[in-house]
């Protein structure tokens, strides 16, 4: 029993170390390619369009409804203590410092991170990535760099959009459903929201973009085992991307607090 437990633990630890090592080496190769190869601007913009424009609707929906729900939930508490004028600042601070970046990150992980893993995974198992190598085209330059850079650059823009949608969603509920004062809502936000609240959220979101695309590209790039392997890589990219993003969220929040 003890031998079995030790064996299982050792096997799991080895697997974890191997995955982490793989991630690190992939990132090292990415950084090397980033500084030694020509940046392909057309592909970068194409990826920014795919990650950014493609995610706008889902980011708008989740942002708006998060703000709306925050308004409803906070109204109950604030009304008891006569502090409904603080609902606006609460929504704004929550959306800019935490919920905007995190919800956008989770949405982009599910939508774009998984797409990266699936696309690169399919290219791997159908030998398209090998074909690039034999044609003297660096697959990292051609496939990975545009995706990771595009996600890192576009995430703050999506997050600003999510923050705005959340504040507007909260406004709509506060004014048209709860009957609060519009001027009070906006005035509270102006009074309590600082520029650093927005920048800390945007810094976090850029890191989230990097993590999501790094995980998605890595899991796709090393995919094996046919269609099942691609499916597994896609699932793992969403799970690992979300977990790593939430871990990074804690440490970044501690740093930027």
């Amino acid at each position, binding site marked *: 029993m003890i031998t079995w437990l030790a064996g299982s633990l050792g096997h799991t630890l080895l697997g974890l170390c191997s995955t982490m090592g793989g991630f690190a080496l992939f990132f090292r190769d990415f950084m090397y390619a980033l500084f030694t190869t020509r940046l392909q601007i057309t592909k970068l913009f194409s990826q920014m369009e795919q990650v950014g424009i493609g995610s706008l609707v889902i980011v708008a929906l989740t942002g708006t409804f998060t703000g709306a729900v925050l308004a409803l939930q906070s109204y109950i508490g604030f009304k008891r203590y006569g502090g409904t004028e603080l609902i606006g600042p609460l929504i704004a601070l929550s959306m800019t410092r935490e919920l905007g970046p995190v919800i956008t990150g989770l949405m982009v992980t599910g939508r774009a991170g998984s797409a990266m893993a699936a696309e690169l995974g*399919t*290219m791997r198992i159908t*030998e398209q990535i090998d074909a690039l190598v*034999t044609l*003297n085209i660096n697959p990292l330059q*051609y496939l990975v760099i545009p995706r990771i850079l595009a996600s890192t650059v576009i995430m703050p823009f999506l997050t600003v959009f999510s923050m705005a949608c959340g504040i507007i969603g909260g406004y709509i509920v506060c004014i048209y459903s709860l009957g609060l004062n519009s001027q009070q809502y906006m005035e509270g936000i102006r009074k309590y929201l600082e520029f650093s609240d927005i920048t800390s959220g945007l810094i976090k979101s850029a890191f989230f973009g990097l993590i999501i695309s790094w995980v998605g590209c890595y899991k796709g790039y090393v995919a094996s085992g046919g269609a099942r392997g691609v499916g597994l890589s896609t699932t793992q990219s969403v799970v690992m991307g979300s977990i790593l993003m939430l871990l990074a969220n804690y440490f970044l929040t501690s740093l930027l607090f």
Partner: protein
Amino acid sequence: MIQLIDLHKRFGTGRWVTDGLNLEIPDGKMTAIIGRSGEGKSVLLKQMIGLIPPTSGAINVDGVDLITAPSAQKEKILQQFGYVFQFAALLDSLNILRNIGITLFEQGKSEEEVLPIVKEKLRLVNLSDDILDKNPSELSGGMRKRVGLARTLISQPKIILYDEPTTGLDPITTRIIHELMFDMQKKFNMTSVVISHDVEIFKYADRVALLHQGKIRYCGDAKTVWESDNPYLYQFIRGLPEGPMDAETAKH
């Protein structure tokens, strides 16, 4: 000349896919490597082009060992190689023009510059220009393989490696592909290495090597394979279920 010397390869702690393999591939000739499914023929080809690193041994190209050569020198040598994949490995997201001309587009050439070169390569593989705007999924298996060959020819390789180029094709298309490979080899005096299960390849190849259990069991002139009394070759080309291959496979 390409020399494979004492080449060993295994994945993890698994069996040796190449187990002390030695083979010489002469310049300007077509060498066919034959063998049963799962013998590691594709792995051997991928080791030659650097897609899979060997566990040990040497791969000499014109006297330079690709395994120990500095990366710049290795890169320069590998630029002489072309590789035609088993299922063509065309990029799904690009049309045929972009697929064939990908190396030129990546060098920063414009469509006006690339188009005539691509059309010329298409003519070489007996395909018409009207497929240029199509996607790979719209082509038949045989056409995809010819497009794959055209893409490889763009970089004017001196050595071309074919990984089972006729797998899954009907006999007529198989013959067309074989004749195309033969014509390319004669026209450009290329060194060709062909992985195949198909005994029809003997009509076009100059030399034949038989891979079994990680070693080359026979290597000789393609024109005399049917007269050979090598027991491995005799069993393989006649498709006999019993013989040395069967006995050795059972041992493993």
